[in-house]
Every structure is written in C-alpha cells, then in structure tokens.
C-alpha cells in the first residue's frame, strides 16, 4: 500500500476524451485510469490496454465442466453403481449430452463471473476510492498518477490544454488492486524533492 498523488481531469464529452488520452500518453504522463459512465468502444485501445483473457478463462472453466460431467456420470454408471436400465449400454453417451452441456455452461459462467470479480477486485463490502462520483453519471474522469518524473502544475496545465473542464488533485492510498504491480512502497509525500 502506498499513498499516491493523482491529478484528476474531468471531461464532459467523449469526443474530447479520445484525442486527450492520446496527447496525454504521448506527452509521457502515466494515466492511472480513466473512468466512464458507460462502455466506450475503442477507449481501451486508445489507452493501450491489452485485450482481456477472460474468454480463455471461460473456455478452461467450460472444459472443466465437460470433463466433470462425463467423468462423473461415467464413473457412477460404470464403476461405482452400474444399473441396468432396460438393457441399455452403461456408457450411454447420447443420453449424457444434456447434463454435460449444462455443466459446461454452468462451470464456464460461474467461473468467469468469479474471475471477473477477482480481476476487477469487486465484491460486496469492498470500498474503493472514487475519484469523481459523477463518473458513473455523465462525466469522464481521467486520472494521472504523479510520479517523480511529473510535476503537478504542468500536469494540470496540460490537462486544461487538452480540454478537461474540471481539474483537481487527490491523494489516495492505493489498495492492492491499484498497487499490485508497484515495487515502490515509498509514500508519495515522503519522496520530497524528487519531483521536478
């Protein structure tokens, strides 16, 4: 956990936001995140985020469900308690298709949703720092993290120049969902004169 300082730029139009992200990135600022009230297609690419691997996870969970069903039913009907249903085969694969399919879907969906919640660090009672409460309403919020290479005043000026309608500075303690990959544990305020 480290305390970090962020410059928060608020945009009211997604058509201003797109070029702004590009300019902020090419100017070398570290975009902590952008918060939007709805999904905007292409914004992830504009920010340079990689594609999510959630699909792959879903596929793996689905395969797990398939093997659980076939393995489970196969074991029960052939090894654990073989029952003779009107002289039919003990390995009656066509009759297992419905349950196999259902378990595939069930495992895949439940697994994916749990993975989604884990990756996004979402669960009941989770409290997060919300930079702008109206970013779930009508505003687009770009949060720039101040590092020892960036200066608060210049970041504010730059955000104004790219069209942010409101700008403020916030200090937030990053939870492990924010700072997972950060090796740097020094609180922002203690870095002192490292800022340019």
């Amino acid at each position, binding site marked *: 956990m480290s305390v970090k300082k962020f410059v928060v730029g608020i945009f009211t139009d*997604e*058509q201003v936001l*797109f*070029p702004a992200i*590009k300019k902020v990135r090419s100017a070398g600022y570290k975009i902590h*995140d952008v*918060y*939007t*009230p*709805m*999904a*905007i297609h292409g*914004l*992830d690419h*504009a*920010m340079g*985020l990689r*594609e*999510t691997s*959630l*699909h792959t996870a*879903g596929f793996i969970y*689905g395969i797990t469900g398939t093997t659980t069903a076939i393995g489970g*039913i196969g074991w*029960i*009907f052939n090894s654990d*308690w073989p*029952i003779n*249903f009107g002289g*039919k085969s003990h390995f009656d694969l066509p*009759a*297992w298709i*419905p*349950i196999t*399919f*259902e*378990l595939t*879907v*069930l495992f*895949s*969906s*439940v697994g*994916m*949703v749990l993975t*989604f*919640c884990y*990756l*996004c660090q*979402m*669960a*009941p009672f*989770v409290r*997060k720092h*919300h930079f702008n*409460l*109206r*970013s*779930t*309403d*009508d505003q687009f919020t770009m949060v720039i993290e101040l590092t020892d290479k960036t200066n608060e005043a210049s970041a504010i000026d730059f955000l104004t120049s790219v069209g942010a309608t409101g700008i403020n500075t916030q200090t937030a303690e990053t939870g492990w969902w924010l700072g997972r990959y950060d090796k740097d544990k020094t609180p922002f305020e203690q870095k002192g004169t490292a800022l340019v």
Partner: protein
Amino acid sequence: MALLAYESQVRPGLVDGPKDYHQVTEDLVRPIEANPTRAWWIGFLVSVACLIFGIYSVTMQVIYGVGQWNLHKTVGWGWDITNFVWWIGIGHAGTLISAILLLFRQGWRTGVNRAAEAMTIFAVICAGQFPIWHMGRVWLCFFIMPYPNTRGSVWPNFNSPLLWDVFAISTYFTVSLLFWYTGLLPDLATVRDRAKLKWRKFMYGTLSFGWSGSVKHWQRHEALALVLAGLSTPLVLSVHTIVSFDFATSVIPGWHTTIFPPYFVAGAIFSGFAMVQTLLLVTRKVLNLKEYITVEHIEIMNKVIVLTGSIVGIAYLTELFVSWYSMNKFENWAFFQNRVNIFSPYGWAYYLMMGCNVLSPQIFWFRKMRRNVTVTFFMSIIVNIGMWFERFVIIVLSIYRDYVPSSWATYYRPSIWEVGFYVGTFGLFFTCYFLFSKFFPVIAIAEIKHILKRSGNVYKAKMGHEEAETAEEFAAENLHHDH
C-alpha cells in the same frame, strides 16, 4: 465534429426527447429515489395477498399430501406441470432479448433487456416451485441431486429427462442471475454515487461491489457479457428442449413427438414476449418511461410475437399431419378425438388455444395494430392465456382419455389448492417484480447511454449532415480523425 457513432436515418430512434447523459441518469434513477406511488403500493399489496394465498395452498398440500390436488391415476400431471412449463416458457423471452439480441447487435434490446431479464429470473423461480412441491415429501427434495449418500450410494438416473430438467433449470437460473447481476453492477454504482441517505449509500455500495467504471473493468465487463450471451443462447434453447423431452421421450401418444423441442422453444419465446409486453406496458406507464420504452420497441416485439405465433401455428398443424400420416390409431385418437373433436369433453381447450395463439396474433400483420398500445396490451394477455392452454392441451388432453375407457369418466378439474398454488406463483412473481422496480433501475442506464448518441432521436436528427454527404466526404471527415 466527427462522429464517434453513426446510424442510418432508416433505423428508427430508440430514445425520444432531448436527452443528455445526465438526463438519462435522472430519468432512470428517479423511480428508485422517489417514494413509491399509490399504484405501486396497491399492486404490491395485491401481489403479497396472492402470495400468502399461495403459501397457504402449498402448506395444505404439504400437510395433507399431494392428494389435496385433484390428480388421479389417469391424469397424473395436471395444473402443476402445466404451470411449470408455462412459467419456464415465460422466462425464455428475457434470455432471448438479453443474450441472442446482444449477439445480433440489436440496439433496441437496451430499452427492455433489464426488465426482461428480471422477469426471466422471477419466472424461473416460480416455475421451479411446481416440480419441487409436487414431490410430496418436499423435505427430501435434495435426493434429486447427485451426491455421495449413505444409501449405497444410490445415484439419480442420469439418463432420465426429469434429471436433465434439474440440471437445465438450475443452470438456467444461475446463469440468468449472473448475467442480470453483472449487467446491473454499473447501474447500481450510479445509484450509489447519487445516494444521499446513509442506508442507501450502504445498500447500493454493497450491491454494486465497488464498481468504479474503469476502462479496464468495462473492457472485461463487455467481454464477460458477450461470452455469457454466447453461453446463454444455446442454454436457453437447451432448457426448453429438455423440458419438452419430459414429454417427448415418453411413449404417450400426444407427447411422443419429435417436433417438440423446436415447437416448445418457439412457444416459449412467444409467451415470453407476451409477458414482456404486459410488464413493460405497465412499467412504462406507471414509471413514466415512455421516452425509453418507445412505440418502436413495442412494434418490434409485436413482430416477434406474430413470427413465433405463426411458427407455433405451423407446429400445431404439423402435429396433426404427422398423426394422420402415421396411421397409428392411438396417435389418431390422441389428436383427432381428444383435441380436434370439439364435442369431446376438453375440445373447447384446443380451440381456445388455436384461437389465442394462432389466429389472434395475425392482427399484428397490420402496422397500425402493432403500434397500438391498447391492442398490444390486450393481445399480450390473450397470448398468455393461449399459451397456458397449449401446455394444458398437451399435458392433460393427451392422457385424460387413455387406453382404458373405464378411466374416461374422470374429467379432471383442479382443486382449490391447485388453483391457489398457481395464484400464489403470480403473487411471488409480481411481488418480486414490484420490489425490483422499486429498488433497481428497470432500464439499463449504462447501456442506454451507450446507444444514446447513436440512436437517440435528437442526435439522429443532427446526423442529417452526414446523410447528405457522399461516401468520400464522409470518409475524409471521419476516418482520418485521430483516435
């Protein structure tokens, strides 16, 4: 300014009125933040009263046994399974709207998908009651689950369609719930961030799982929605297919029909859309959401109703043809004596079904009728009645005059407790729906915002400039825009 999204003027707009993002939030969160209206209270209390009657009926049945119902040796499945299939069918429209239309990129689903998905979940809960309470010794209902038990282990029969049903419906319920709830997260966060009262902040803070609207989260959210839609699409088809297997894999004439799976799925979507219409026409009126659930939405759903109603009609006729063509006297008896013969004891039910499901929806070939709210509401009720009778015809009319004429005299009439149980599920359904409409956004706020600048009528009107351009001008203006 270049466009981020452009939609042809040929497509009708889906959001009326001068809306911006904030106005959308205001309009759609208002019903949650305002005090419940008198109409809400009346509806809610009536629903709760029905629910209490249902609980009483079920209690009577649990105390005194399934004999409280008027089922007998000949008609072993009556109202309970009819209601079960009917409720399950109702649920299917919700998944069709939320999943299949998402895959087909149908923008109009955004106005209706949230309420339709909620309807699915409540309908499946209602449907599940019937097989569970029909078990009689309901306290042993966990026997249907495969678990290592001390009785052997004795496992359920995995080759039985009744067990497939257990898996299909529990999976369907789980997946629908997950799909609905993940879609709700951003909207619950919207409500949370506007909340002023402490309990509201806590409640919606808890329910929204700490959703922040981060781009990465949106990206995952979209991927999740797409994959869940891809999974739900075959799932919803499989569920009613498996329900139809309950009948189709038997050897009863009238049930033993290979046409059942597609026929049941079409019927399910048909009845489900009728229920969506019933609910949404009331919702848009009571919550004043006419700018979001527009006449365009109603018209499109009516088109689905006339399509699926006609598919069901063809299925009815095909059944008759196959029965005649089989030259099997038992098949012939089941269809031509027990159903088509209007003078048979239950002949009226067959013609009621035909009239409600096949003939009456044909009115929707006329545009004026499709866009008439009163006609639509009336028709949605008619279709629901018709679809209930379809299940009744299939289940009861196939068995009430079977191979042994000595059992024919037992004309099946439901007991008050069977009727009470059915009324109780209505109570359960509408109690849930009223609570949902009070505490959750009935329209997907984030999804409306997503299509607003493409399909909002105000924004579409401004696209006239682009409409007049040549393709080269349009490309020059838009494609080279930097993003």
